[in-house]
């Protein structure tokens, strides 16, 4: 079952087109990433999916309904947002939970669980948290209502490598527990590690698929690293065997990374 269905949507800001004839889906228990350069319309697309903006044309269904009707069942993390600095971590979670209709008793347990997971001090004022901890608090706020679908706009921006890894593990755990996640990111390794499917977007969907499908489709070459000589070769598939046979010592054969594909695709745009 599709938890998100976007059908031929179009969005303009005055004369400028942000999204053009976009169709996409997110299935149950799936992590889907949207990749694209700055100004590609990723945030605009997410805002339409979680109901902050309305498309000019086309239709969006989230959990089988119009986005406005399911806002309390989903969790969102907008791109440029700060928590309520004048409230404590606990209050930020408590009020957003109550506004989303979470029962008081359940909410207290949920806050305990989330603050422990994200290593947040409940009594601390949000304004006193570091940038990374603020992002963690915002993620916890997105998850406070135990949503069926999480929509995250650059969830790990500002986090240190360890923090990013923890969020990745958490998102993968959420997926395993049956949640669906739609995210945007500029970290290609993040998209590669987390995503079941990826959409490359620049106003319109350029292409989509699993990370390996995309790599297979867009690159014909392999990277061969000769550790003995300290050289890196890029060779076509049929030449790999020949090259490998000629190397005397340790070597590694790699498919190009998603980053290579990304650069190749958007350079040619």
């Amino acid at each position, binding site marked *: 079952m599709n938890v998100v269905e976007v059908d031929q949507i179009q969005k303009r800001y005055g004369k400028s087109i942000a999204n053009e004839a976009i169709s996409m889906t997110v299935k149950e228990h799936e992590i889907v990433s949207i990749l694209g350069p700055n100004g590609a319309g990723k945030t605009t697309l997410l805002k339409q999916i979680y109901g902050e903006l309305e498309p000019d044309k086309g239709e969006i269904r989230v959990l089988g309904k119009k986005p406005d009707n399911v806002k309390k069942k989903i969790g*969102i993390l907008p791109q440029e947002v700060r928590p309520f600095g004048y409230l404590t971590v606990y209050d930020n979670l408590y009020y957003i939970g*109550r506004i989303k209709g979470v029962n008081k008793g359940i909410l207290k347990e949920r806050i305990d669980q989330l603050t422990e997971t994200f290593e947040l001090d409940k009594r601390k004022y949000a304004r006193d948290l570091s940038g990374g901890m603020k992002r963690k608090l915002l993620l916890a706020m997105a998850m406070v209502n135990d949503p069926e679908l999480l929509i995250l706009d650059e969830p790990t921006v500002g986090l240190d490598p360890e923090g990013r890894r923890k969020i990745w593990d958490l998102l993968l755990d959420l997926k395993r527990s049956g949640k669906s996640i739609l995210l945007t990111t500029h970290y290609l390794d993040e998209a590669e590690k987390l995503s079941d499917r990826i959409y490359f977007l620049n106003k319109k969907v350029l292409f989509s698929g699993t990370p390996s499908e995309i790599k297979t489709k867009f690159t014909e070459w392999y990277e061969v690293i000769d550790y003995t000589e300290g050289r890196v070769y890029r060779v076509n598939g049929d030449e790999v065997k020949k090259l490998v046979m000629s190397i005397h010592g340790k070597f590694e054969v790699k498919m190009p990374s998603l980053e290579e594909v990304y650069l190749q695709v958007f350079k040619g745009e």
Partner: protein
Amino acid sequence: MFREIFYLVAMQIKGIKSYAIGYVFFSLLFPLGFMLVFGSFLTGPYVIYIISGTITAYLFVSTFGSVANNLANEIEGGRFSLIIGGGVRREVYSLSISLSQVILDISSILAILAVGFLVYHLQLKSIPLFVIALGSSIIMSATFGMVLASILKNPYVVSQYSTVLGFALTFFAPVYYPLSFIPLPFRYLVFLEPSTYVSQAIYYSIEGNPYSLLWSLAVIALALFLITTNKIPRLLKVIQ
């Protein structure tokens, strides 16, 4: 919807701890000092103007300034997106910001009235007229603040203009003196200032004069004018 408003207002009121010193000074101590100093220069019927004027200044200027600044900051800080994404309608969130400001203003108005009663022996001749005047003024002030935020958008610009407008609308309008003090050709100009309507409605209500109802009606008409001239929908577009 009421639960949402309740928690949104409670959340904002809770934030008062962060600026408690400023709040106590500007909402309670400043009006007391201001009224005691300037009230001592006035005699006879004009003393009422120091009371109605200070209520106008606090009710109108403080409300529109705070609503405009809070809204602009919430939009800039992305918290508007967060709350709207949490299933709260834009209008409800704007309303809750206005409502929390109004609740905070009540303490200032009570402090002003207390000085009026105790020091200047004020007689509030019609409580219903006074309540109507306050209610209509609050609605218009909050609307004015929302419009200001929608037009100026940037919180730094909103902050500057709300300060400038606050002073202009307090001291270049008949807030602390009668409308009749202004020479006739210029008197028409002050009708362009919303604070004129608020001050007159409050002054006449304290006097118990039914004329206050007309001014309150004008205040409501002004609020409706602001809403229907497509300014509030602009606010909603700004947030997008």
